């Protein structure tokens, strides 16, 4: 019989930072005892040893009760997730259209995509691309039957990929469409056909206007060594969390090498909880080779006076030492880069954007570590422009990944049920309204918001700022204080109708308090920023000064 451990060490080893957390079993349930984040090059055991020593110094009785000893870190049971290093996928097809369709699917995976077609590369350049050691797999595809734009070069592509397969025995190839039926394919593989067969995976062919999204993504994700990858395991924890809390939860994770956007829903009737998500290398905080376009994307969210070259310098340094320069202007740069990354992630997940606002938006990833809570909620509000009300919380101890390494869903659910309250750091509530008549822009008293007690009675019950009434103007970003842990009901009344999930003049939405309070966003949906840089910076600064500490502006 195996004894139940009294403490567990959870490790989320990211590419930029490593987070360690101690879970202790106290009074028959698991609790988060403490967590610590350090630069990625630091040994997680050294971080854990420091954390355990702090717990022991703060509460020796607690440390004894759960058996914590700084000298015996290696004896602790571990839940360890890590960010897998990024890998590149060469995407080849016989026309620019076909490459575009394949790229559209591949960008919704954790692969970094390198596309090429005969319209952009000559055969030697395409061979060169496919032979590069950093290309770990190839995706080659064609329509069934091949389109007019593909017929001229499809044999060349088939022969090229077959030849590369012979030259690189470690390479895997995903074939989507009638490539393998071409004679040049069989000629190219020659006598090595049997040996190469196990490295070739078949996927459905391309359509005229779309790629085989779900099936192809599954194959591509299956090629990645992702068993303990944080963005894979976090999805499993998300399902357990939705089940435990009985809430629809959206997870937005921005990491150093990729991002994850997922929506989980609790089970209904006989159906268990479920999740749907997209991992994308495009959601990385900074791309490996930040170019001028990347600098412009981040500059669009900054209020400082950096020019494109200096911004490029900052991004290259952020890429090379992502754990450094995380305070002051560096913190603002990170949040600007995180907005740019979220924008890329949202762009490749229109299916998730089309869903109603979730009950809870969970933000995760090293990009948000240590940032002021209000600035995180504002970053989400700036990019995920969906009307409705949602609570926003942060995975502050970075437990989503490690907890997801528990294979048994029942065991995982039990642990998540115990630590759910500790796992989520409430940042506040976000209410996004749209659809007010443009003629009311900038005028006071477009509407009002009143915070009442959660049970429906007016007054000051429950603490925080319940009973608060505030006027709202179209285009405004309003923040109302509501203490963490406080539940309230927000009554929003508009002079004309507005849209908060549905169209009406009066809305009643439940809100929860947090570090950022309740943020009511009446800006455009989607957000339209001024074209002129000085005006755009002024608008961003006006919104930002409500959430960044005043002494640092």
């Amino acid at each position: 019989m195996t004894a139940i451990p009294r403490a567990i060490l959870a490790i989320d080893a990211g590419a930029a930072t490593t987070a360690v957390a101690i879970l202790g079993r106290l009074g028959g349930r698991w609790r988060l005892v403490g967590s610590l984040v350090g630069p990625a090059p630091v040994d997680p055991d050294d971080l854990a040893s420091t954390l355990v020593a702090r717990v022991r110094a703060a509460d020796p009785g607690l440390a004894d009760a759960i058996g914590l000893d700084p000298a015996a870190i290696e004896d602790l049971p571990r839940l360890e997730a890590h960010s897998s290093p990024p890998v590149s996928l060469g995407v080849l097809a016989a026309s620019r259209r076909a490459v575009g369709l394949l790229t559209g699917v591949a960008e919704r995976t954790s692969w970094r995509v390198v596309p090429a077609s005969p319209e952009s590369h000559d055969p030697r350049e395409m061979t060169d691309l496919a032979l590069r050691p950093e290309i770990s797999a190839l995706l080659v595809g064609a329509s069934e039957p091949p389109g007019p734009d593909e017929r001229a070069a499809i044999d060349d592509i088939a022969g090229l990929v077959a030849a590369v397969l012979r030259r690189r025995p470690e390479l895997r190839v995903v074939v989507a469409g009638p490539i393998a039926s071409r004679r040049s394919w069989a000629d190219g593989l020659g006598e090595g056909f049997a040996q190469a067969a196990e490295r070739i995976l078949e996927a459905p062919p391309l359509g005229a206007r779309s790629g085989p999204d779900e099936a192809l993504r599954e194959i591509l994700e299956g090629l990645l060594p992702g068993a303990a990858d944080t963005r894979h395991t976090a999805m499993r924890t998300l399902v357990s969390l939705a089940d435990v809390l009985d809430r629809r939860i959206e997870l937005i994770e921005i990491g150093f090498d990729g991002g994850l956007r997922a929506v989980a829903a609790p089970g209904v009737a006989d159906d268990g909880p479920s999740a749907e998500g997209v991992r994308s290398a495009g959601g990385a905080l900074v791309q490996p080779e930040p170019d001028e376009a990347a600098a412009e994307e981040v500059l669009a969210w900054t209020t400082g006076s950096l020019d494109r070259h200096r911004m490029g310098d900052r991004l290259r340094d952020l890429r090379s030492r992502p754990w450094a320069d995380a305070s002051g202007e560096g913190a603002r740069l990170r949040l600007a880069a995180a907005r740019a990354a979220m924008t890329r992630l949202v762009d490749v997940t229109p299916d998730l954007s089309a869903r109603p606002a979730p009950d809870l938006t969970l933000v995760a990833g090293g990009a948000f570590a240590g940032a002021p809570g209000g600035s995180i909620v504002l970053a989400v509000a700036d990019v995920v422009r969906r009307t409705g009300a949602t609570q926003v919380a942060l995975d502050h101890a970075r437990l989503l990944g490690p907890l997801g390494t528990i294979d048994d869903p029942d065991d995982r659910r039990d642990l998540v049920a115990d630590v759910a309250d500790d796992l989520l750091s409430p940042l506040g509530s976000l209410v996004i309204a749209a659809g007010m008549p443009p003629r009311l822009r900038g005028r006071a008293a477009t509407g009002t918001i009143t915070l009442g007690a959660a049970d429906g009675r007016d007054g000051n019950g429950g603490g925080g700022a319940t009973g608060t009434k505030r006027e709202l103007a179209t285009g405004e970003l309003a923040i109302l204080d509501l203490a963490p842990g406080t539940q309230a009901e927000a009554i929003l009344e508009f002079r004309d109708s507005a849209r908060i999930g549905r169209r009406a003049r009066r809305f009643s939405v439940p809100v929860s308090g947090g570090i950022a309070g309740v943020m009511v966003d009446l800006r455009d949906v989607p957000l339209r920023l001024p074209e002129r840089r000085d005006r755009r910076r002024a608008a961003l600064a006006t919104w930002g000064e409500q959430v960044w500490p005043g002494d640092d502006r």
Partner: protein
Amino acid sequence: MTAEPRPGIELVPPRRLLVAPVDVFFDLHPGDRALVADGDTIPVETPLADRLRDPRTAVVAGTARGDDAGEPGDRWSPAPGRRGQEREGERPGELLFRSGGRWRIGTGDHAEPLLAPFGGTVHEVRPGIGLRLRSGGRALVGVETLAGPTSGRLSIVTGPDGEVRAPQVDVSAAGAILVAGARIDAEALTRARAVGVRGVVVAGLGVKERRDFLASERRGRAAVHGLPPFAILVLDGAAGRPIASPVMDILRALEGRTVAIVVEPPCLVVDDPTVDLPRPPADLVWVRSGPLVGAEGRWAGLAGPRRFPGGVVLEAGFVRFGDRPPVAVPLGDLERFV
């Protein structure tokens, strides 16, 4: 004797100064021709490969070896009798793939030799992909190498926080690898290239200088006579910051000796195992970013979580700069040398 540093220094990100042995990858592209084989032991400046300067695709009817079907990656040479008919394939090349019964080859009119920047043993020769050269020497690690590889005599032309400008580069530096301090501008790089400098070691290279240099390289490579070997080793990143003293001490110890700059991994290779390279004290920490960038001090212990500008709470450590009281610095902004 060096005293043991205070506890907690293990949470400061380590920076590895030297690696040994050195295993360097030289990339080859379709059409390039390897001149060495697995297991060859070669001295410095041995030609490793012929690299095409003007690579292109050509279509040829078949291999020159009669009934031999040919393998992708094999060399292709025109049979004497075919001259005149196979105008596109007159130059030798590398078989890429076959389609419609004809081979596509990678070929070009002009090649330049890739010379070994240090001596060692060749392994993993893969046509069209690359080869590896292993040396028993040591290497000082940087973050990026542009162009290269190259080798030359190391010469220090400015201090660790200096900046090199074009007038400071003259013909007396021909054949040398210059240590250029914190920054170097694009004009100085162009002049260094022009007077025959073989390479530059610099702490930071901004994206503007990087872009200008790479554009100049492309133009030079496309020119008829090509370019002599040249490389830039960037030690720290894009923003200008002084070269850390442990790195500078090593560079000073190497001044006047022949060293090499290679691309993958980006490093400065010291092929002479007899050189005594200094090591820094174990408790020395360097501030690589933040308001105190470039400062060096002694580790004075963990400071715990601290609130820093921007309202950000970060793990910090105490650092003693000179005789002043210890200052709390975010752990992520520090580096120690191992």
